[in-house]
C-alpha cells in the first residue's frame, strides 16, 4: 500500500504555474525542492493512489496528491482537477485547482470568496460533512433526479451551512478526499520516511519546534513508532520545560517510558523535574515509570524518598510501580514494615501481597 517505488521527477515540469488556476494562501511562496518521491496510498474505493513526498526549501516534508475526480450524484457529473497538500502529520495544508475553475450548481464559477470559504472548510478537520455520505445529502424528489450540487429542497440545511453556497457536493467531495482515511496513511508514510532518512530526522529535530510538530513527534515516540531514540531525551526535557505549552508538556509526560535512562544528564534532569512536580503530576509520571524495564537506582531513591509521609494512594501507586523489581526488594520490605499503621484496605492488601512476594 505504501512505498512501492521512488521516482525522481522535476516538480516544475509537472506543474507549470500557468496550469494552476487557484492556489490556497499557505502555498503561495513555498519553494519546493526539485526531488519528489512517489508513494501510494489507498483511496476511498480501495484503489492505489499516487502520493508525492515533497520538501520545501527549508527541508520540511509535505505530501501532495493530484487527482481528477468526478463530482456527481445521479445524472450529471463534472470532473474537477485538483491537487491536495498535507503536512508531515497528515493534516490538510493547501489546495490547488488546475486547468479550470471549480463551478457551482448553476454552472457559475467559484468566486474568490467561495475559494476562501472552501479553504476555511477544508482546514477544519472536523466538519459535519464527515458524518454524511454523498447520497445522504439529497432526498430523491418525487419527480425527477436530484441535480448536481443542488442545495435547495431536500438537501439538509445544516450540511449546506457547512459547505460553499450551491456547491455542497464539490465541498463534500474535496473534504472527504482530504480528511477521511488519508491522515492515518500519510502518518505511516511519514514514519517510514523518518525512520529511514537520518538526515530528515536530524533536520526536523534540530529545527525550531512549532507546537504542532512537537506534538506530532512526541506522540510518535510515545507510541514507539520512531527508532531514533537519541533525539527523544532532549525533546522530552525541552518539552517538559514548556509551561507555556501545556499540550506539549502533557504528551511529553507520556513519552517518559520510551526514554533512555542510561543517559546520566537526562536522568538527573528527570529526577529534578520529578521532585518538583505536584502530586497529581507525579502520579502521571509514576504511571510511565511503571513501564520502564530497568529503573535506575537514583530514580528509585527519588521516588521512595520520605515515602511513609506521603498520601496513601501515592504510596499504593509506588508499590505497584515497584512490583517485581527484585533489586529493590529488601529496601521496599523495610519501607512496607513502616506503613502498617495506615488504615487503607487497598494499601494493606497490596502490602500484604507484596510482603508475601518478596
Amino acid at each position, binding site marked *: 500500500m505504501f512505498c512501492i517505488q521512488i521516482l525522481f521527477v522535476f516538480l516544475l515540469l509537472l506543474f507549470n504555474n500557468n496550469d494552476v488556476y487557484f492556489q490556497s494562501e499557505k502555498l503561495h511562496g513555498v519553494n519546493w525542492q526539485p526531488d519528489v518521491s512517489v508513494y501510494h496510498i489507498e483511496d476511498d474505493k480501495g484503489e492505489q493512489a499516487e502520493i508525492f513526498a515533497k520538501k520545501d526549501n527549508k527541508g520540511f516534508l509535505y505530501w501532495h496528491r493530484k487527482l481528477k475526480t468526478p463530482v456527481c450524484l445521479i445524472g450529471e457529473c463534472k470532473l474537477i482537477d485538483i491537487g491536495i497538500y498535507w503536512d508531515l502529520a497528515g493534516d490538510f495544508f493547501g489546495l490547488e485547482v488546475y486547468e479550470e475553475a471549480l463551478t457551482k450548481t448553476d454552472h457559475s464559477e467559484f468566486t474568490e470568496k467561495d475559494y476562501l470559504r472552501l479553504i476555511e472548510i477544508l482546514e*477544519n478537520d*472536523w466538519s459535519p460533512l464527515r458524518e454524511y455520505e454523498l447520497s445522504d445529502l439529497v432526498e430523491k424528489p418525487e419527480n425527477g433526479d436530484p441535480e448536481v450540487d443542488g442545495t435547495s429542497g*431536500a438537501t439538509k440545511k445544516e450540511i449546506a451551512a457547512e459547505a460553499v453556497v450551491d456547491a455542497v457536493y464539490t465541498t463534500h467531495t474535496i473534504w472527504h478526499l482530504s480528511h477521511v482515511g488519508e491522515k492515518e496513511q500519510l502518518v505511516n508514510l511519514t514514519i517510514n520516511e523518518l525512520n529511514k532518512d537520518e538526515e530528515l530526522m536530524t533536520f526536523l529535530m534540530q529545527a525550531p519546534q512549532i507546537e504542532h510538530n512537537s506534538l506530532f513527534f512526541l506522540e510518535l515516540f510515545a507510541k514507539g513508532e520512531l527508532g531514533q531514540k537519541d533525539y527523544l531525551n532532549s525533546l522530552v526535557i525541552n518539552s517538559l520545560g514548556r509551561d507555556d505549552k501545556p499540550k506539549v508538556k502533557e504528551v511529553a509526560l507520556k513519552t517518559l517510558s520510551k526514554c533512555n535512562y542510561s543517559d546520566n544528564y537526562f536522568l538527573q534532569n528527570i529526577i529534578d523535574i520529578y521532585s518538583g512536580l505536584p502530586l*497529581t*503530576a507525579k502520579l502521571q509520571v509514576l504511571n510511565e515509570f511503571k513501564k520502564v524495564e530497568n529503573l535506575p537506582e537514583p530514580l528509585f531513591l527519588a521516588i521512595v524518598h520520605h515515602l511513609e509521609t506521603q498520601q496513601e494512594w501515592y504510596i499504593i501507586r509506588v508499590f505497584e510501580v515497584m512490583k517485581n523489581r527484585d533489586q529493590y526488594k529488601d529496601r521496599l520490605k523495610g519501607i512496607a514494615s513502616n506503613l502498617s499503621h495506615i488504615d487503607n484496605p487497598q494499601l494493606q*492488601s497490596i502490602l500484604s501481597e507484596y510482603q508475601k512476594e518478596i
Partner: protein
Amino acid sequence: MNRRKFLNISLPATGAIMMGSGMMSLEAKAEIYRQFSSSSNFDTYDLVVNGGGLAGYFAASYAAKSGKKVLLIEKRTSPGFELFAKHKLWMEADGFEDFSPELSNLFLPKGEVAEMNNSLGKGPGNSKFEDEILLFSGSIRKGMLRNLLVSKVHVLLMTDVCGIFQDKGKVKGVLMAGKQGLQHVKCNNFIDASDQVMFSRNFFNQAYEIDRAGFVLELKNVENPQKKVLSVSRDYKVHQDQIAFHRGKLSEGQAFLDFEFKVEEQSLELIEHQARHKAALLGQNFKNIDPSLKNAEIYQHGLETSIILKDDRLPEVDLEGYFMLNGKAVTSKNIQTTNEEARKMVESLPKSSRKAKASTLRIHNAEIPLDQIRFTGLDEASFSIPMEQVTFDYNALVKDKEYCQVAVAGGGTGGSFVAKGAAGKGANTIVADYFNDLGGTKTMGGVMGYYHGVTSNGFFKKQNEEAERTAFENNMSTKVGRKYYHLKEILNAGGRFIPGAIFCGAILEDQKVSGFLVCRNGKLQTINGDVTVDATGDGDIASFAGASFSQGNSRTGETQNYSQWDVKGAVSISSSPTNRDYDVLDTTKISELQRGLFLSHYEAHFYDFHPFLTVRESRLIEGMHVLNLYDVAEKTHFKDVIALASSDFDPHNVGSSEFSKCGFLLPHSNDLTVEIPYRCIVPKSLDGLLIAGRGISQTHNAMQFTRMTADILVLGYLTGQIAADLAWTNTRPRDFDVSDLQREWADLGYLPKDYDRPSNEDKRFQEDEINTRIAELSEGKREFLYECSRLPKEKAIPVLKTYYGKSEDEKAKLLLAKALAWFGESDGNALIVEELQEMFDLEQKEGYPGGYVDDYDFIRGREKNVLEGLFWRINQNIALLAMTGSKSSIPVIRNIIENTTSGGGVVNRTNDYFNGRIDLKIIPFYNRIHNLCFYGDRIPDAQFIPGFEKLLKDENIGGFKTEDYDEVRWRVYGGLLEISIAATLARCGAKSGYQLLVNYLQDIHSNYKAFARAELRDITHQDFGVNPLKWRRFLAEKQYPRPTRKLEKTIEV
C-alpha cells in the same frame, strides 16, 4: 416489502405456533405482554432457571410445557449465550438432520434467507457450508426468546442470580440483581445452567482453575479463503499456534476467526482484556497471517470469551432443590444430548406446590439472616412476576470488595472518559460496566455517528483522531476500534476496567455515597471509592442512594423513544432500516425494561442486532443548579462553567412544555451552544457523588440541547479530572473550587479562552434588558415574543401593560397582547381572538394548511425562531388564550373544537427512514388537537364536551388500544393524544373522560398508567392506585357532568 410484511418474516415461526400473516399481531401481543398484563396470581415458582443458554432454555421450556411455573433468568440481553455472546455462529453439521422441525427452525428460521448474501451454502436453509451449519446471531436470539415466551416461561433478561434463599437445607428462593436493584423471588427448585455452572462453583466455594480462553473475531472483506485452520507464528501465543477459520453466510467476504489462548491470570476481568489485546495483535498482522486476510477488517467480536477449565467436575451441592445443568460445546449431536439431559432433569424434579418460606439468604462468602434484610413491594403495576425489592447493609454484609479513589459506574460514552480523565490525573480509578467492552451507546448500541455537539472542542477532536487511528492500525471497524481505544487508554493511564458488572445498589453512609454494589458472574461485590461518579446515564446509583430526580414530561411522564439498532448486514431492507426507534419506555421499571427488550427481539433483523438497548432520556438527577431553558436560550455564562454543549431542540415530538405549545420552542429550533456549570454535576442532597452523562441536573427542555455524544464525552473527561482532584484534596464536591481546572482546560483548548468573563446569570432580570426586549416587541418585531416570554413575570407585566396602553400600531399591539397573555393577563384577548377567528376562517376556506410538525425541513432552521405557517400560528393563539385563564375566548375555541377533525389517517412519508420513526406516526391535526386540550385543561367547560367526544369518535383518533401490538409499536403518540383528550374531557366534567382514563390504567405503557392515575387523583381528590375496578365503583356513584376541574401547573422551563 412493507413494514408489516417484513415483521411477519422477522418472527421465526415456532414449533408451537405456525402463524399465518393475519395472526401475527395478535400472537405477538399475547406472547410479549403475558408478563406485563396482570399482577401475579401465585407467589412461588416451581422452578427458577439461572442462565438462558441452550441447557437452561431446554429445561425451562420442558418444565413450562409440563405445567410448571417457571422463571428463566439470563444476565445477558438475549438468551443463547454459547452462540451469540461467544459469537460462535457455526456448528458441526453431522447430526443436524436428526433435529426435530421445531429445533431445526430455531437455528435456521426461514425469514433469515432474505438477509443471506452468500449463495455458496447448501442443505438446510442454504446454510450448510462444507461440514458446518452456519448461523445468524439474530435468528438464535429471536427464536429462543420467542419460543420461551410461547411456552409461557417468565423471562428476565439483564438479570443475574446472586444468592439463594434457604431454610433447613432446602432452596426457598433466589436473590436477583438487575438494573433496578436486588429482588427476591420464591421457588422450590433451582437449576443452575449458567456458563460452566460458574455460579455454583463460586456459591459452593469450589476451587477451579481456568486453563485457556477462546475468543471469536468476525471479519469482513475476506478474499477467497482456502484453509480451515491457519497456522500462525508462536509470537501470537495462541493455543497450538492455530486459528480456526469458519465461513459466514452473510456474504462471501464474511468469516470468523476462532482462537484460544493460555490465560495469564485467573481473573475473568483480565482474561477479557487479554482476548482483546490478542485480537488487536492479530488484526495488525492480518496481511502476514494469510493472503485471504489482506484486506480483512474486524467487523465485530465476541461479547465475551469462552472459558476452558482444567477440571470441569461439578461442585458438591448441599441444598435440596438445587440442581446443575452444565452445557456442552455446540455441535448438532451435543445439542441433542443437552436437550435430552434437560428433559430428564425436569422430569426428575420433585413435585411441590408449597409456598416457599426462607430463613436465611446465602450469598458468596456470607449467610445473612432475614432479619437483616428489608423486603419492600415493587411499584410495578400489572407485572406478572411475583417479586420483592431487597436491600441490606451492603458494606457490612458483602465481603468481596474493591477500593479505589475514583469509582466510576458505567463505561459508556461519558463514563469511559470519566475514567480516562480521573486516571490521567493520577487517581487510582476503577470503571465498571455491564458489558465487557467500553463505549456504551456508541459501541454496544451502534450509534456511532455524531450529530450536533461542539465538535470544535480540542479534546473531542483529539480523542476522535486517536480512536480512528486505533481502528486503522488494528484493521478494525471504527466501532471495534473505539472499544479497544477506550480499554487501552484507561489501562495505559493506570486505571482499571471491571467488566460484566450489573449495578444494583449504592453504598451510603450519612448521605455520603462511598461506592456502589455490583453483581459480577453471580457474586455481589462492593466497589468502594473516595469519590463515586454515576455515569450510568440513567442516574441509577444516585437513585439507589435516594437522590431526587425528574423524568420526561412533567405531566405525562413520557420520555423520548428508545432504540435497539440492528448491526448493518449485507442486504438492506428498505422498509426496515437498521436504525429504528421502538417505543416509549420507563427503564427505571423492571417490567418496562423487559418489555423493551422483548419488542426489540421480535422486530430485529435476523443477521444481528446490537446488545445494548439505547435510551435517549431517563432520570435527571437534581443538582445544586438545575440547567433550564432560560439558561439555554439566554446563553447564560456561568462562573463555574466546565463544558459546552450544542444542539437544536429535538425532543422527538413537538415538545410538551408551555413554551412549545405556545409556539416559542418548536422541534429543530436553531442550534444553540449551552454552558454547563459545575453545580449541575453535583447532586443536591448527596455527598461523595458526581453525575456524568445525560443524567446531569437539568430540565427536560434543557436536556434536548445537551445530550449529544460529542458533548457527553468531553463533559465526562472533565468530570473525571474533577473527581481526581476531589479525591486528592479530600474535598466535598459541593465545596470544590473549579477555577484551577478551568484555567488548565482553557490552556489545553478544552474550554473557551474567555471562560472567566463576568457571569450573566441575572441578565433577564435587569431593568434595561426587560425594557429593551419589550420596546423591540412594541416595534412589531415578532422574534421578540420569544425573547419576552423568558422575562420574569412580575417585572415584565407592568412594562408590557404600559406599552400596550400606549401602542397604536395594530400589529405591535397584537404582539404585546400575546406577550401579556403568556404571562396570564387577558388585556388583549379580544385582539388575539379576532386574529384567531380570521386565521381559522382562512384555514377552513383554504383547506388543510400543511407545514405540520412532521415536515421537519419546514420548521427546521427558521430565522430567529419566528413562528411561521397558518397551522402553527392558530395553535399559538389557542395556547396563549389558554394561558390567560379567561373564559372570554370560550366561544371561539368551542367553534374550533367542533370544526376540527383528525385530518385523515397517519401521514405517510415519502422516505423510509421517516416512515420508520414512531414519533412521526401522527395524524395531520395531531398538534392542533393537543393545543385544544391545552386550552380545555386550563379553562375547562362543559360546553366543550360534545366537541371533544366527537373527536374521540373520529376513527383516526379514538378507539386506540395501546395493548394491541401494532398500535403500541406504531401509534404510541396516538395513545398520548387519546389519553390527553380523556384528561381534558374529565376536567370538563364528562363521564366519557373519566371512563377513558380508567381504561388507560391498564395500558401497557407505564407512563400512561401513571398519567391516568395522576389525572384521576387530581380531579377527584381520591386515589385508588391503578385498580380500575375500584375507580369504576367510585365513579359509578357520581352525577355527570361533574364539576369542572382546572389544571394548575407551573410553566415548565
